[in-house]
């Protein structure tokens, strides 16, 4: 018998603290599977954010660093410039990346830092109890938008992938989702490409992963996957927004 699925070596055996059914866990596993497949576990340095995935350094079985809220791309920049031969990635939520860390991610992409960002968009501040994020959908209820986000009061949700794809320094930008096994497979393929492009020195790479927060959305884990599919996909279309030009 051969094992065709299970815990990848790039993930510690420690159990996640995430809520039942939270897709942060799936995304962790995909990143770890990619590190295994590319054989880069011992060459990789990850930067953990502030947010529910603040303890990511306890879970990835590679070198890890913690960053202040939103500052992971700046920390990753420093690490990559000192260790240009290492594979450097950040793992960040939407509150971390699209709110307090907007400047850092935009300038890291603009400078074409050769890092990979895994951007987990669950349309909410999960860790702090469900406040509105810049990515919260119109009409979506949060503790700070109890009647639903309104355009008049809070404006429109940011489309980070579309925005970053306009920057010349961005080499690979894709948005994927993990709401069913088919999409999980595609999400992993995009993450793998991002790491490969980083290793090939193409420039800044980012994969936005649409994710659930059953706890703060007030849904069961199964309902949350359905909610993601029905509400997030129409506003946040999946696909590759930027790919590096093939070298001749």
């Amino acid at each position: 018998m051969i094992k065709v699925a299970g815990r990848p070596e790039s993930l510690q055996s420690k159990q996640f603290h995430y809520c039942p059914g939270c897709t942060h866990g799936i995304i962790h596993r995909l990143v770890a599977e990619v590190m295994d497949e590319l054989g880069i576990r011992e060459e990789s340095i990850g930067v953990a954010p502030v947010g529910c995935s603040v303890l990511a350094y306890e879970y990835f079985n590679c070198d890890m660093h913690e960053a202040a809220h939103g500052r992971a791309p700046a920390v990753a920049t420093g690490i990559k410039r000192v260790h240009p031969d290492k594979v450097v990635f950040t793992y960040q939520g939407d509150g971390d990346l699209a709110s307090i860390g907007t400047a850092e991610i935009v300038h890291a992409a603009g400078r074409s830092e050769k890092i990979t960002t895994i951007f987990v968009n669950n349309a909410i501040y999960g860790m702090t109890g469900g406040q509105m994020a810049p990515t919260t959908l119109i009409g979506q209820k949060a503790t700070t938008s109890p009647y639903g986000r309104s355009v008049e009061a809070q404006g429109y949700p940011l489309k980070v992938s579309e925005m970053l794809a306009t920057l010349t320094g961005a080499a690979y930008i894709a948005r994927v989702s993990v709401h069913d096994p088919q999409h999980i497979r595609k999400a992993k393929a995009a993450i793998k490409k991002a790491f490969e492009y980083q290793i090939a020195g193409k420039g800044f790479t980012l994969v936005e992963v649409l994710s659930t927060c059953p706890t703060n959305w007030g849904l069961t884990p199964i309902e949350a996957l359905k909610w993601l599919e029905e509400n997030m996909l129409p506003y946040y279309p999946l696909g590759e927004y930027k790919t590096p030009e093939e070298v001749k």
Partner: protein
Amino acid sequence: MPKVVFDEDRCKGCELCTTVCPKNIVVMSKKINAKGYHPATVDEMDKCIGCAFCANICPDTVIEVFKEEKK
């Protein structure tokens, strides 16, 4: 014959794995695990086709899937 193995005490009873099995053999157990959840399990293992969908969607790496080696 393919086989799935659940690390029961890791399971958080989220039920995501029960929704993706093409053979509908992943079910929630009546027993309670160390965390206090009803863990997922497979009743009719002989029906498993080893597609690994269940392991793929599990957020807590509870599930391992084994298959016969291809000749």
